[in-house]
Structures are given as structure tokens and as C-alpha cells.
């Protein structure tokens, strides 16, 4: 039975034990959490990452700009379009290429579909399986497959789209895509009401998540967290509104922000973001301009530095590219949401019960492959 107030600070006594929530654990990727445990309380935690470190940034210097796209979208495979877009925005800035309006709208629609897919995966595994709720695992994966089918029709691949080379999207919308997508969005909107009944308003989930892992607004700003974690703590900051890219400057949407800062607020932020994504896709489909979708981009990039940012489902992805007048980048630096939110893990999991740890970990939506690159 979890209470809403945190227990008082205990100093380390001789009764502490070091437990390793090892690299193999169900659901999440490979990350090791070294916990120092005193009875039922976790005194402190030390994350040990790097089990999926594949050296993406070093490899990126050995491949040319277009070949880099499949490499750099693999770190977060369930949200691949945003990594792709974040990599391509600075390249286009360096090369001086602008994407035509229709291309921007198509990229926006694909990105918002990907946001829904990523939040459904989060709901199934990080929020569902970690709290022991396997019904939502089956429901969310079933609905996610419907979106994946449409994405496969649009781009040709289920998860790894490689859809946005420099200059614009690879393919136009197929004939009949708008009708199928609208039908799916109507169905999904009704499903979200059922998700709310089964999971988000479930008294067991509410009891486990409300008041757990509170991150106050000043701490969220000081720690530099990003994404839904930041918005659940009361800071209304979203790169789609602050520095609009794609078609977001023409579209009208809200940014869900809550003030509680606990794990339940982080759950609800993502539910509201899914509703806003449905809204954005509907507007983009109705306002879609005509014309060409892409422009030809050169194969080399001139010298210079460029930084591009997008808002993915886990937070802000910022990519810095340094070009050196050749067809391979000199340096690619990726700063993504999971790595920036990692600082919140040892900060929030202090003096909590052991059973609260999966809830806090799941609400931060830490994806180890993305953080390790």
C-alpha cells in the first residue's frame, strides 16, 4: 500500500544490501541499476549503462550523408522518423536546401503517426507490463499493428522507414491513403476511451502511480529533463511550438501540461499527447497543399556547423553536424531525450519502496538503445 508522502531521509545503516537489477530484465532494454536497499526501501541507485553501445557516432564519420540515415534511425527504432528528421534538418541547413510545403506536410503526418505508435509501445510495456497490467499490453500492441500497416503502405517498411533523405520525403501518399487513415483515427479515438477505463482510471494503477516520484518544477528545470517528463512537472515547453519545423507553424494544437509532477501525471501527459496527435493528423490531411514533395539535394555538404532539433516522443532530439566539404560528415553529435532524462533516475529513486521503482522507471520512458546510441 503506497502512501502519498515520502518517508523521512534515512542514513545508510549496516543493514543495507547492494542488489543489481541486472542487464537481463523483462521488457526494457539492457540497463543495470545498482540499488542499495535497506529492508523495503531503496536508499540510492546507480545506473550502469552502455550495454547496447554500438558506436553510432564513430560509424557516422565513415558513411556518407545518405547512408547514415539507416544507421542513425536505429537507436530509437520505434520512433525512427524523429531521429531521421533531427539528423536531416541540420544537413539541409548546411546545404541550403528547402523542402517544398507538400513534403513538409507528409513528413508531419508520418511523424505524428510515429508518435502515436511510440506512445502505444510505451503504454504496452513501460506502463503496462511494469505495473503488471498485461491486458493493456495486448490491446496496445493490437492497435499499434494497425498503424504499422498504414506506415508500411506509405513508406515500404514496418519500423525502419528511412523516409526523409535530405530534400524531402521519398514517396508521396498512395491513392486511398487519406480515407484509410481517417477511418483508423476515428476507430482509435473510441479506443482511447476504453484505454482510459481499463488503465488510466483503474484504481490500482492510480494507487500505484499517484504521488510517486514527484519531480518539482524547479528541479525539472535544473536537471534539464525534456519531453513528457518536463511537461508533467509544469513547464510548458515543446520544440514544435518554440522552434516550429515541418508544418507545425500552420497547425493548431495544444501542449498538455500538468503541475503534479508525479508518475501519474507523466502517464496522463502521454495519453493527452496521443489525442493531440490525432487532431494534428486530421488538420494536416485537410490542409494538404499540392505540388512536388522533394527537391534534389547535393551529395556533399559545405564547411560549417549546424544544429537541428525536433520533439520526439521521448523528448527533444538535438543533432549537431559539422561538415567539411566532403560527402561524409566530420562530426555528428546526437543528444536525445533518453540520455538527458537519465539524470532523473538516481534523483527520483531515493527512499522509495522497491515496488515503486518499476513505476518510476516506466514513467520516465527510458529507452536504453537510444541513450547508448
Amino acid at each position, binding site marked *: 500500500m503506497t502512501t502519498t508522502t515520502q518517508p523521512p531521509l534515512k542514513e545508510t545503516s549496516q543493514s543495507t544490501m547492494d542488489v543489481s537489477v541486472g542487464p537481463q530484465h523483462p521488457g526494457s532494454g539492457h540497463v543495470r541499476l545498482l540499488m542499495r536497499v535497506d529492508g523495503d526501501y531503496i536508499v540510492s541507485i546507480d545506473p550502469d*549503462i*552502455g550495454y547496447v*553501445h554500438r*558506436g553510432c*557516432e*564513430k*560509424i557516422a564519420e*565513415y558513411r556518407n550523408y545518405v547512408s547514415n540515415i539507416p544507421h542513425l534511425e536505429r537507436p530509437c527504432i520505434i520512433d525512427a522518423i524523429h531521429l531521421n528528421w533531427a539528423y536531416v534538418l541540420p544537413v539541409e*541547413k548546411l546545404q*541550403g536546401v*528547402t523542402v517544398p510545403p507538400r513534403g513538409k506536410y507528409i513528413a508531419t503526418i508520418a511523424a505524428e503517426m510515429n508518435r502515436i505508435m511510440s506512445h502505444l509501445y510505451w503504454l504496452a510495456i513501460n506502463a503496462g507490463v511494469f505495473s503488471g497490467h498485461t491486458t493493456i499490453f495486448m490491446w496496445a500492441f493490437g492497435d499499434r499493428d494497425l498503424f504499422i500497416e498504414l506506415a508500411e503502405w506509405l513508406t515500404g517498411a514496418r519500423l525502419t522507414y528511412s523516409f526523409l533523405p535530405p530534400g524531402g520525403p521519398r514517396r508521396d501518399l498512395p491513392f486511398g491513403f487519406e480515407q484509410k487513415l481517417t477511418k483508423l483515427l476515428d476507430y482509435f479515438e473510441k479506443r482511447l476511451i476504453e484505454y482510459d477505463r481499463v488503465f488510466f482510471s483503474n484504481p490500482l494503477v492510480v494507487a500505484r502511480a499517484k504521488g510517486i516520484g514527484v519531480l518539482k518544477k524547479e528541479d525539472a*528545470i*535544473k*536537471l*534539464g*529533463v525534456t519531453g513528457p517528463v*518536463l511537461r508533467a512537472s509544469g*513547464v510548458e*515547453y515543446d520544440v514544435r511550438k*518554440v*522552434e516550429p519545423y515541418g508544418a507545425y507553424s500552420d497547425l493548431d494544437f495544444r501542449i498538455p501540461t500538468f503541475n503534479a509532477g508525479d508518475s501519474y501525471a507523466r502517464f496522463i501527459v502521454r495519453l493527452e499527447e496521443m489525442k493531440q496527435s490525432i487532431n494534428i493528423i486530421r488538420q494536416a490531411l485537410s490542409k494538404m497543399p499540392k505540388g512536388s514533395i522533394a527537391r534534389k539535394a547535393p551529395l556533399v555538404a559545405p564547411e*560549417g*556547423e*549546424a*544544429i537541428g*532539433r525536433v520533439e520526439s516522443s521521448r523528448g*527533444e532530439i*538535438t543533432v*549537431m553536424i*559539422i561538415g567539411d566539404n566532403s560527402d561524409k560528415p*566530420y*562530426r555528428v*553529435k546526437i*543528444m536525445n531525450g533518453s*540520455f*538527458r532524462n*537519465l*539524470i532523473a533516475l538516481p534523483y527520483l529513486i531515493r527512499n522509495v519502496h522497491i515496488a515503486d521503482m518499476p513505476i518510476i522507471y516506466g514513467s520516465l520512458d527510458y529507452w536504453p538503445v537510444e541513450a*547508448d546510441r
Partner: protein
Amino acid sequence: MTQTISAREETVINKTKSQFPQYIKETRIDSERRVTITFDEDHLQEIASWMRDDLGFDHLIGIAGVDYPTQKKIECLYLVASFSKPEFQDIILTLKAELARDNPSISSITSIWQSAHFHEREAFEMFGIKFEGHPDLRKLLTLDNWEGPPPMLKDIKFPEMGQR
């Protein structure tokens, strides 16, 4: 492509130059909303705490290292941004420090921006930059017993890289 550079980027540069005239080596506006300031690395703490308290850049996005072997330097870039100040919310300020390539070291800013904790550990491991004053500087991402060189340096060529 015309770039509209507003007065806000100029404000950032002018205020910094007037506060620390002797520590700033070079300033540059790369494009709209992107400002780069190169500074003297011995005075990182003063500049960083003034940036946070007076200018309002309250969080760190990341720390990047760039290796220039021909110019015998490693650059350490600090990307900072602001959540709370509305007129600077979309600006990314890059603070650049140029370190000697043989033994790069700079003081740590974890006391000013807490999020630098993991970023500095990664830069230490990938480039060999020593951050003095970091509470827990050890390897983060590579193998437990990696005794090899820092992987991201340009002259470290792993034999299998780039072969098809």
C-alpha cells in the same frame, strides 16, 4: 536562403562581451537562433554561473567534443538553452573551449548545471577530456575493462571500420 537574424542574438553577444571582455576570444552568429561564443577555458565557472543566473540559460542540452588533429586541439562544446526566459527560449548558445590535444582538461560544471553529470562522463570516455571536480568520473558506455584509447579521436582507426 535569407536568414532573419533578430536583435536577440545580438543582445546575447553584446551582454556577454560587456561582462567578460577579456575572457571572450571570438563570437559568431551561425544562423538564426544559433550563437557560438569561444571563451578562455580557465574561467568557465564564472562565465557559466553568470549565464545561468543573469542571462537565464538554465539548462544544458549536451556536451560535445570535436577532435582536430591537424590543429592540435580538441574543442569542448557546451550547448545551453533556456526554459524559463521567453525571449531566449528558442536560442541555442554554444560555448566553445579549445583544449590542448595532449592532455585536455577543464573544470567541471556539475555544480552549476546538474545535468552535466552524465555528459561529462561520456566526453571523458570518448575523448579523454579530464573534468576536474567531477564527483564520479568513470567510464560510462564502453566495455568494463576497456583499456584502449578514447574511441572518438580521429587518429584512432579501428581496423575493421569502413570496410564493406
